[in-house]
């Protein structure tokens, strides 16, 4: 009896070990493949080596599986036939929803509704490797895939890349030029309001925590490069590959920022948290608060690191600093 069971267990173990070895081998292949492709993309500095198409008619039926991609297309004057939606709102993001009227909703970003994509019968599918990369092989069965990668380059690069594919380079250049002019204007406004070389930080208040945004994506580049603000003490210490760090409000004075860019999440609990913070003596004694240099941002636009989102954020900044 014992022997028989030892035998069975041994067989199960063997199966386990065998499948483990098989799995590991393929895993090794997998990782080496992905690391080499990462190197390749690093060398050329462009995404989309895997794409089979390089030219797309802008009037074709395009399905966009990333919100950034959708907004880059919109910036070029192309309305995708269908687009991914934001998971938080379960719909198109509010600041671009009016531009997407009539477009099909293709499921939450990163968890695409394949049936909806298939039902749309798109001519091309535009994705961002950062989000729907793992769905690529499934999407390729539906239509040719065009991709960008959010982790490579700035939104300008992503916009140019998409523009090159749809043959709208001029529009992209015009868009970027307009943005830079706006940025110039607004940074002068800010300098006259806060003084040259003023330091700033961006704070996001959610229901659970207070976050300080890093100098990286999404709000770092526009604040510290385009608007020429200086990162407040300690902002640089937050890794730029992370969007933010969670802090406790006790350390807020350490940042000693001349100006605070504030995003309060659009839910009642976050607003309650902010109301409490506002009445906290610690907050009231911050330099930026005492000098009335706290600016409440339209979070959707600022946190949207796409060409359209950043441009809208710049408009928002212009309004905030125009008196």
């Amino acid at each position, binding site marked *: 009896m014992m022997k028989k069971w030892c035998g069975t*267990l041994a067989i199960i173990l063997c199966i386990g070990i065998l*499948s483990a070895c*098989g*799995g590991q081998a393929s895993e090794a292949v997998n990782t080496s493949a992905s690391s080499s492709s990462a190197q390749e993309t690093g060398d050329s500095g462009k995404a989309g080596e895997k794409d089979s198409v390089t030219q797309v008619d802008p009037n074709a039926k395009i399905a966009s599986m990333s919100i950034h991609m959708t907004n880059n297309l919109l910036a070029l004057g192309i309305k995708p036939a269908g687009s991914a939606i934001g*998971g938080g709102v379960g719909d198109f993001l509010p600041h671009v929803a009016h531009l997407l009227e009539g477009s099909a909703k293709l499921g939450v970003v990163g968890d695409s*509704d394949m049936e909806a994509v298939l039902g749309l019968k798109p001519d091309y599918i535009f994705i961002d490797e950062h989000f729907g990369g793992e769905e690529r092989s499934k999407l390729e069965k539906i239509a040719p895939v065009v991709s960008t990668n959010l982790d490579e380059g700035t939104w300008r690069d992503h916009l140019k890349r998409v523009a090159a594919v749809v043959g709208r380079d001029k529009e992209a250049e015009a868009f970027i030029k307009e943005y830079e002019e706006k940025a110039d204007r607004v940074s002068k406004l800010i300098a006259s309001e806060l003084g040259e070389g003023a330091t700033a930080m961006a704070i996001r208040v959610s229901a659970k925590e207070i976050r300080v945004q890093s100098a990286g994506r999404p709000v770092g580049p526009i604040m510290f490069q385009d608007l020429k603000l200086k990162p407040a003490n300690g902002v640089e210490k937050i890794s730029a590959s992370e969007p933010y760090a969670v802090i406790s409000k006790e350390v807020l004075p350490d940042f000693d920022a001349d100006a605070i860019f504030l995003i309060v999440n659009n839910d009642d609990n976050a607003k309650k948290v902010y109301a409490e913070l506002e009445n906290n003596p610690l907050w009231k004694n911050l330099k930026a608060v005492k000098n009335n240099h706290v600016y409440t941002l339209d979070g959707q636009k600022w946190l949207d690191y796409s060409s359209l989102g950043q441009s809208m954020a710049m408009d928002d900044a212009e309004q905030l600093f125009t008196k």
Partner: protein
Amino acid sequence: MDGKAIFLLRRKRTIRVAIILLGVALTVILISLNTGTIRLSPTSVLKALIGYGTAEESMILYEYRLPRIIITMLAGAGLGIAGAVFQGVSRNTLADPGILGINAGAAFGLIAYISFFRSLDGPAALMIPLFTFAGGAVIALVIFLFAYDRYRGLLPIRLILVGIAVSAGVSAMTLLLSLRLDEDTYAFAARWLAGSVWSRDWVNVWGLFPWIVVLIPIIYYRSATLDLFTLGDETAASLGSAVTRSRLILLALAVALSCASVSMAGGIGFIGLAAPHIAKRLVGPQHRHFLPIAAMTGLVILVAADTIGRSLFHPNAVPAGVVVAAVGGPYFLYLLFTTK
């Protein structure tokens, strides 16, 4: 009435219940196949199933819907059986992979896996059951060592208590590990812990399939031992059962089964508890009768829960585990209160 007559009566009843459940299961699966963004008529579903559908229809069925449904079927059956074995082995009707901490161990294994490999697609997916099993097995071993008494063997009641304690500890460690993950991976881990059927591809089906079809027959073959356990350890030993050893083997099999199931379907806890209870009420306590019923009940519950979860709040899907708990909990209470 003598023993044989009772046995025959029970078997008849089991067959009847099994046929009814089979019908329910088929209905649920068919409804599930019909659920999705694109409306397909039941006839076109059937046509596509047997290979006469349009290319689009068969793509929807074979690429998108069927793999997920098969995973919920396999995992549901696996969880039902695993729960039944845990309850039989520990002689405690509260035992369940979730309560015993096995799921917590499996979760730890999964988080360890995504911390190291970060990739969940392709052939790597076949490895996931191994990691969850490793995690679950380590926890089972720890629980076992604590619950083992040199003179009296494995103490069933201690098994549960130790399980609860160990599971709390492991959950804390899992949480700690998961906090170090980046946001996307963390979101995945959190969804997994809530019991979200994340696997959608055939590769995941093949990752889970061998575990289920190998382990369930082995357990079924040992079902007589499970019956002996219910008599108490002394009686079982005097009837010729090597109590501790059988208990160990069955426990190991059940751990493997539940860990493989949750690896693909997410940390769904309640089925292991509810399915055996429902099955026992339907066909009585003999394991050879109620094990298959428990498997079918688990299957029906999970397939139904996942179908409800992904259609009710479209486009934001609700994890199947949440649906199971929300619908199953009250129903389970009702069962407990209406029977003596």
